[in-house]
């Protein structure tokens, strides 16, 4: 078998076309081997050129460089492909972290619908519900009309763990069914585990309407 020096067949960077083919078949056929003790006679006979390759090529460190180059190149390519697929996936998965929240004024009733001094449950919709949200697009709040005509709105979520608080009108207390949290009529903690007062919504009157500024779920 004819053996030729490598430098005669270099194209650029010391790599010949035959090298690529040789590497392809080596990786495929002999990828599990650690040595370089094989020959690719088929390329010698195939008219590609004098591509007789054997382990002696390794003498100049060329094979190691080539292998290292290809490992890095193939690894980089696979990494790039993986990232290309992963980035949109992760973006979609973690979208709630970056999506802008929308807050809007939502009408909850006419001013005259609310008797002075009473606390009433009102409902309103999210500013941008998903089309398939159904009833969960709605939320509730406790609205009180004070004697001075102002309105105060409290979130229904207990500040302990978010359960819906109930209004006991005669006792003038908000009570939580889950763990027994109690709040005064102004939402201040009166007993039990809640760590802070009930969250308040912004309220305004617009013409004859009472409007509540929507807000995110009150969290610790």
């Amino acid at each position: 078998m004819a053996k030729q020096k490598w430098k005669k067949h270099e194209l650029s960077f010391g790599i010949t076309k035959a090298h690529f083919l040789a590497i392809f078949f080596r990786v495929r056929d002999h990828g599990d081997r650690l040595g370089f003790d094989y020959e690719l006679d088929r390329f010698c006979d195939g008219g590609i050129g004098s591509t007789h390759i054997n382990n002696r090529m390794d003498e100049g460190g060329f094979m190691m460089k080539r292998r290292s180059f290809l490992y890095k190149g193939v690894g980089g390519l696979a990494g790039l492909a993986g990232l290309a697929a992963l980035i949109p996936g992760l973006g979609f998965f973690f979208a709630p972290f970056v999506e802008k929240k929308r807050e809007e004024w939502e009408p909850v009733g006419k001013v005259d619908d609310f008797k002075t001094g009473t606390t009433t449950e009102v409902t309103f919709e999210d500013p941008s519900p998903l089309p398939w949200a159904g009833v969960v697009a709605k939320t509730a709040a406790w609205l009180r009309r004070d004697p001075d005509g102002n309105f105060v709105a409290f979130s229904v979520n207990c500040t302990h763990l978010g359960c819906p608080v109930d209004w006991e009108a005669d006792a003038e207390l908000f009570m939580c069914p889950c763990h027994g949290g109690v709040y005064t009529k102004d939402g201040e903690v009166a007993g039990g585990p809640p760590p802070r007062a009930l969250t308040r919504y912004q309220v305004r009157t617009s013409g004859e309407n009472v409007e509540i500024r929507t807000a995110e779920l009150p969290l610790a």
Partner: protein
Amino acid sequence: MKVIKNLANWFEDRTGLVAAMQIPATHPVPKNKGWSWYYVLGSATLVSFLIQVFTGTLLSLSYIPSSSQAYQTLQFITHDAFFGRILRGMHFFGASAMILLMGLHMIRTFLMASYKYPREVSWMSGVFLLFLTIGMGFTGQLLRWDQNAIWSVVVGVEQAARVPLIGKSLAHFMLGGDVLGGATLSRFYSMHVFFLPGIIYGLIGLHLFLVVRNGISDRPRRGNPVDPATYREEYHSLLKKEGEPFWPNAAWKDVVFGSIVVLSIVALAIAFGPPEIGLPPDPTLIHAQPRPDWYLLWYYAVLSLLPHASETFVIVLGPVIFAVLIFILPLISNRGERHPARRPWAVATVLATVALIASFTVAGYYANWSPDFNPKPIPASVIASQDPKIIGGAHLFFAKACINCHQISGNGGKRGPDLSLVAERLNHDELVIRIVNGGYNMPPFGPTLKPQDLSDIVSFLESRKRNTPNQE
């Protein structure tokens, strides 16, 4: 027959699957005489998981993970679909069985110290599987998408929000936005059906691979501590001496117990059906009392009963500390005695843990800390007085929601002390002070009670003593 046989032979020749399966199926295992039935818990857990995969896949044929339709599809599955009620029941009892069996399997492994060398990774993968299974249970409960489910989501999210720094982001991530909405259910559905099961499949694969690689643990023997330097050699000697092929010699017990588990799940599903679906998932229906399923009742109780100041610490650090401790257990104790009789602290730990979880579960079931929002008015026979002050006080006791938290002759909430005989414990002044100032969990009523109302309520309470009719 010959055609089938030829076909099977052809398939085996091309794939070698049967030959490949024979290696794990017939790998030698210790006889573990007298202890062998303890070893069926792991395979029974796997069987209950397979029941979940089977029933869950079928339920997905009708379940629509849309927050506007899920409730209706569940109603359809439960009440109209052919065998739907039983299938949903199997999914529910299968989940319960899986959690229960996994707990028992873990206790068995801990008591027999099977987590020691060389099975540390088996234990650690099992710990992951435990938490993933609880995660499956929690996300599965939410897929019922009724009133209880949506408020349970809120409770779960609020707990996540207490994690320092990332809590709020974590909560929004769980909700799929900054409020409960259309994205919430589909996220939990994906977690329940794709993400968590995907990880579970992988970990079960690892768990089973390790069972074959390291062999099932031999029964513990007194005075025969695990020494990593010699264990494998001793184990292989034991297999040579008294080993037997897993299939069929040992596996028949797994088959028998697994079959009992399946039959029990089916029988329970037929007898009791799935848990009732509550009111629609409407966040404006706020007269709700969300409760977790039975396996998380103990945690619900812990959150209710622990001192308020320690709450965030327990919610955030409690699970982390617990998870880290059980995860690293085999790393800090991978050698030494395995027999329970030589490990009294291990036995005590299990007993204490089981007793605590059982006690908190019972407490969570009764949930006495929840005020009674539907108490009955106090009947005249209990008031047992013609005094207008006492009668007025009894009515105020009801109207001012005192009865929501305090029982009078068996009626009312259990959040606060039973006041049926309160006059025997507290005098007039003490009653006034308690009502006006409140207490640890009791709101102060001073600012909202008129002096006359206070006087009437106190008069009513002063009449609550043993000589009052109906108090005996």
